[in-house]
């Protein structure tokens, strides 16, 4: 199990925005609030070469959803994203 380390590198700009080590600007300082990114290695879940674990969740209508059933023999891109709200 990898213990991720918080990336706190931050450059505060006069316009209120903050730059991370790659130069991406954002309203939050790096290492604060939602902008708590790992520095170096961090967990990325199941390994390449293993079966994607079953995913049972609800879709945006609230109906049950089974990812492998939906895939139905097709290749899949399974995206885990931060939020649709912010």
């Amino acid at each position, binding site marked *: 199990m990898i213990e991720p380390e918080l990336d706190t590198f931050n450059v505060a700009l006069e316009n209120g925005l903050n730059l991370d080590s790659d130069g991406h600007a954002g309203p939050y300082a790096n290492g604060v609030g939602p902008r708590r990114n790992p520095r170096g290695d961090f967990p990325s879940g199941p390994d390449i070469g293993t079966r994607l674990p079953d995913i049972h969740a609800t879709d*945006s209508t609230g109906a049950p959803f089974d990812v492998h059933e939906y895939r139905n023999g097709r290749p899949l891109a*399974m995206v*885990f994203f931060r939020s649709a709200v912010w």
Partner: protein
Amino acid sequence: MDAFEAAGVALVALSYDEPDALADFAAANGITYPMLADPDSEVIAAFGILNTLIPEDDHPWYGIPFPGTYVTDADGTITAKFFENSLAVRASGAQLVRAATGEIVELEPARGDDAMVTAVAAFDPSPLAAGVQRDLLVDLAVPAGQHVYGLPVPDGMVHAHVVLDDGPWKVHAVDAPATQRHVLAGTGDELQIYPGSVRLYVAVSHNASERGDITIAGEIRWQACDDDQCFLPQRQRFELPVHATGANWMQPEHRHEGENFVAHFRKMEARRG
């Protein structure tokens, strides 16, 4: 989305949002692929990708994953993963489709030369949002009887790779074919070689500190050898235009418009409080 459908690749996205928030987001942005709700972060935690750098009592941020994407083959086996340290960086649809299908884009050779290695680089110049990766394609055409090197490479020799000039861009990963083991007859030293022509996919993003028409500049470096001799290391510069835009989530067409999103945010702040 059209590219996924055309390629026969299923696309599903999951976040810690409530179903009604996802429905509003899908409607506001014209999204037709399934968006799954994991409001208690159960799936995220089961995958082992919960962002544990966010304290459990820090609402509404707690519960997000280290964001990333898994690509599987038709049997559901993971064949590629796209995970980045920064929330600001993500894979592009084109990268995911290529990972799922192995689709090959043909490049025009830079110049004909049947004696020496030639190299060509290409980059889609269409608008690219900050943090979204796009593959810079490099083809090295290797004449019969010659080879170029992959990693690891002994000191003093140069493997086939790309170095970008300093600029508002970053290389995230390089996807190269598997190398072959090559044992030198004289010394018994082992080298990793590409025995024929080789395609490198160099994932690049920019940070929007320069916007509009920018030029990504850098060089391809390599060294070729045949069974008798090694040639001097070579460098070939490239300058590739692209139209750089701000982050997608900052663009007017991607804003979370309407009062619903304020309500969704307030609900997220309160739901685990």
